[in-house]
């Protein structure tokens, strides 16, 4: 890659330990129910489970059949049932139904529920209410952290965002604290913690209490500093279209748990599931690149590959033998990866061309820069009128309202009440209920006439967005008209075609540079405060002594996008840091908005 990386970047800690611990604890829990048993797994736990154990691990511990939790009567004939679930009331109720149905037919079985990452009292209350408490044994599988890559760890809790920021439910605060505690005990002790946001503060407190409750051996710290950030500190970044390869792949194909499914449009054959991480040599080189650079890179690679194959010509038998045994396998692997990513790039091009992506980006960029707002509004209006895509329209509306602080709303009636109503009625194909729900959603949108509240979804914040002022203070939007060579990025703005430096990452950069929030008072005021920077008792002396200080763990409460990860990787290369991103889940604009729709009631 073209970046001039600093050579002295420290090595990342080895996170495969987290997987081993989780697997071993699961095995231990399964052994608590000796004998043959059927295992029911909650749908969204299947992929995370796949990453740490495989079927044979489960079979070894007398799991007979595997089922997905489907909220239907079960067909299992086993006399021992084990349920591996998230602590959700709906699921527990279903288990109660299963047990009660057995009772009614006089069938005796043993039941065990394994909650992960923890159980909630509300779930136990359901067991009690349904008369099942005592018939069921419960356990907790402390599977807090799933390493998705060398530098990405996910809590795989997408509901964190909605629960915490929309519903104001703090059930996951301790979970976040515990996750941090686990990292602290394995890779700490941390010496400095920075943060911003209400939830970050609470998670910090929860973690601090847990540290105080337990005791720990001292060890050489591998991770020195920690940065906690709430998603609601920066909504702009995740609402923007992603144009860095990994982000684009996520926007279009949806990366799930580090794995993507490429359909026939990419493979021109049957669908394949592909792991996307640093082990994929081709992917690793293009994941952080702006999409426009990806083509050049892939063609170069293809040419090199051709040359490598061509070497065979004129080889004698012996040379051929070495070639086959030493090089061929690697080449074949590379070939496979290369054709996959070329296929994906082609498919991305096709899809983006079809949906006026260029114009969409233009609109986003003007919104970020804050001019030609009238044009933007009419673009959005047209978008709505033509019923292009509800999520897309909502996304633009949210961007508009955040970046413009809702200013336009009172004065300018281009986006009238009626239009907003249409927006709510956008979903054509879905059954009737969407209508009402969306209507109520939009009803709320319209109610909150004031400013940033247009995005009712974010109403829980009850704060105004001060994007414009923030953008000026932090210099988030580079001056227009300047050349921006995307091949040689000069700052983090490259992840948005040079049009915008992600606010979240800019904050991280600034705080690390200043070792705290000093000098950023104006900024934190605009962000509603809740910032902190604390030093542990061993922080002062061990400073600068070891590499750990340059290994920085950034925890995004409420989700993080691949674009932000790319930006942090860039920052790390520039400044000689290594960032480890811990996210409650990987998110993007669609996931963010979908989680706020009410049609999954």
């Amino acid at each position: 890659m073209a970046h001039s990386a600093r050579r002295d970047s420290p090595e990342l800690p080895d996170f495969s330990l987290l997987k081993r611990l989780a697997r071993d604890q699961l095995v231990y829990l399964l052994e608590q129910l000796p004998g043959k048993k059927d295992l029911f797994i909650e749908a969204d736990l299947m992929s995370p489970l796949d990453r740490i154990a495989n079927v044979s691990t489960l079979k070894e511990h007398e799991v007979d059949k595997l089922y997905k939790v489907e909220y239907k009567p079960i067909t299992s004939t086993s006399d021992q049932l084990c349920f591996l679930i998230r602590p959700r009331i709906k699921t527990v109720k279903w288990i109660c139904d299963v047990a009660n149905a057995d009772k009614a037919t006089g069938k005796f079985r043993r039941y065990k529920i394994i909650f992960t990452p923890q159980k909630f009292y509300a779930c136990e209350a359901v067991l009690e209410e349904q008369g099942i408490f005592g018939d069921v044994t419960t356990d907790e599988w402390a599977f807090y952290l799933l390493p998705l890559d060398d530098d990405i760890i996910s809590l795989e809790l997408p509901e964190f965002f909605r629960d915490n920021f929309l519903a104001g439910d703090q059930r996951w605060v301790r979970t976040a604290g515990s996750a941090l505690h686990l990292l602290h005990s394995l890779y700490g002790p941390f010496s400095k913690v920075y943060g911003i946001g209400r939830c970050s503060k609470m998670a910090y407190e929860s973690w601090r209490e847990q540290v105080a409750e337990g005791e720990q051996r001292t060890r050489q710290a591998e991770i020195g500093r920690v940065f906690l950030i709430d998603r609601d500190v920066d909504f702009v970044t995740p609402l923007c279209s992603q144009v860095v390869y990994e982000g684009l792949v996520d926007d279009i194909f949806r990366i799930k748990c580090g794995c993507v499914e490429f359909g026939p449009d990419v493979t021109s054959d049957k669908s394949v599931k592909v792991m996307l991480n640093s082990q994929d040599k081709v992917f690793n080189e293009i994941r952080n690149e702006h999409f426009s650079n990806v083509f050049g890179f892939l063609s170069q690679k293809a040419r090199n590959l051709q040359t490598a194959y061509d070497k065979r010509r004129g080889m004698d038998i012996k040379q051929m033998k070495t070639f086959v045994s030493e090089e061929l396998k690697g080449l074949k692997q590379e070939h496979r990866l290369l054709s996959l990513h070329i296929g994906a790039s082609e498919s991305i091009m096709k899809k983006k061309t079809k949906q006026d992506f260029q114009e969409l980006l233009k609109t986003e960029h003007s919104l970020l820069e804050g001019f030609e707002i009238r044009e933007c509004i009419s673009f959005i209006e047209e978008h709505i009128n033509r019923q292009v895509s509800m999520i897309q329209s909502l996304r633009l509306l949210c961007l508009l309202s955040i970046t413009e602080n809702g200013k336009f709303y009172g004065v300018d009636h281009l986006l009238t009440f009626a239009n907003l109503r249409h927006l709510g009625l956008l979903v054509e194909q879905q059954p009737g209920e969407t209508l009402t729900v969306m209507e109520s959603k939009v009803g709320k949108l319209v109610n909150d006439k004031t400013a940033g509240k247009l995005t009712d979804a974010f109403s829980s914040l009850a704060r105004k967005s001060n994007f414009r002022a923030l953008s000026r203070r932090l210099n988030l939007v580079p001056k227009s008209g300047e050349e921006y060579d995307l091949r040689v990025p000069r700052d983090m703005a490259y992840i948005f075609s040079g049009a915008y430096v992600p606010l979240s990452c800019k904050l991280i950069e600034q705080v690390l540079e200043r070792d705290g929030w000093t000098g950023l008072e104006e900024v934190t005021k605009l962000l509603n405060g809740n910032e902190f920077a604390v030093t542990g008792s061993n922080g002062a002396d061990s400073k600068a002594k070891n590499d750990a200080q340059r290994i920085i763990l950034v925890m995004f409460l409420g989700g993080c996008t691949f674009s932000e990860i790319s930006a942090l990787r860039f920052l790390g290369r520039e400044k000689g840091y290594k960032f480890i991103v811990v996210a409650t889940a990987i998110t993007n604009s669609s996931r963010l908005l979908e989680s706020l729709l009410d049609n999954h009631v």
Partner: protein
Amino acid sequence: MMKSKADEEDYWNSSKFKAFTFDDEDDEFSRLKESKQAVNSIRRLVEEDDDEDDVEKVSWSGEPVGSISWSVRETAASNQRTDREPTFPKINTDTPTLSKSNSGYSLSSLFKGKTKGGNFQSFNDCESELHCMNEWMNDDWSPEETIQRMQQGKAFSLEKFRSLQDKLLLLDFAVSAHDGNVITAVLIYLKRTLGKEVLFRELESRQTALRHLIQYLTETRDQRLLLELLRSLCRTGPCTTGREHLSITDENKRRDFLKSCLSLPFSPEDSAHVQDHFTLLERQIIIEATDRQAERGGKVEIFQKFPRRASILNMPLVTTLYYCCFYHYTEPEGTYSSSLNIRQTFKISEKQYFVTALAARAKLKAWSDVDALFTSRNWLGFTRKKSPLSFQRVVDILQKNSAPTQVLQDYVALVDDAELRISLAQKHKCHDIVINTYRDLKDRQLLLGYRGKVERGSAEERKIDELLNNPRRRWK
């Protein structure tokens, strides 16, 4: 922010935005194609013995399976009591500190012991369990201590907190601990042991707890209590009733329910929503009944030619408008199903109506209707084509509804911007327009170049030749 026009142009043309375009099949894309060909050409070679390769997945961690004993050892090691952790300071998490004086309990009895959640490996050993049980038997925990025990997953009992004061202290400590799990647990206990009037009253001043209760009732689908709670808080809004409403499947009952909602104390905007929603559903019920009959009767041509794919009941407004533009376009404005009537009743904007009607009529290939949509007469009686939408978009919509070139041509010609007009014309093969535009631009070179793109011996070619060979024509 004011910027001059020139600045703006500059902005869009500046290199940073030009660096990358999705619109053109530019060099990059063709390069990509080439590389794809290159890669494909070597595929044969690769596939020769592509059997044992695990093509489906590349595993990331090749780590061998860790043994359980290893894990147990690790846990044991982490439990060894050695130096204490560096301590971190407490930060203020903006909840008012509770005055401990009126709790009436001493803090000295604060329990400190082995935690359950503290270590990630929570292997319960019998000994500590027993220890816990003993402690629990002779417990006398204060509200604060109880909350701490709950947070740590230790045994506790809430039953002895019987006075309202104790219950509220319990709740307030739970809230100040920022542990939603514990807050909800206390709320479940309070819900069970307090009258709802009292509970609701106390929650009014406790927003965090209130939101937890709302979330809990939503999750347990306790609609009745949720509605009562929200009513008592005067929080009636579409959200609450919306949920209730969703569960009604019969359209007539739904309509009646909506009617009953009209009198609820919504804000003006919301009540307008409910009113519109009610009117829409009422309308849909009438249309559905008539159309279903017409379809079954088999006498109305349009229903035979284009059978309805689904009932119109409960469909969104825009879908309803589309439906009416499709099946009832020519009806007089007085009828319920007339598209104009729908437009009037629901005050649909011109643009929205236009886009919807355009798409519906284009789908039916009713080109004269399409044409009529654009026609307006000025005061002198001349007709001229007007559109609330840019003609570029119009072309786009028509093309998506597979309009023939002759139709497209009319609208491409109306695109103001010459450059855009040419690119659209080329894209949709409207040769006449391209030729005429080049003629008007007096650009012989371009015209000559375009000659190669039209069919040999076609009328277009002849037209180009005529222009080129016309000696009276002046070129640039």
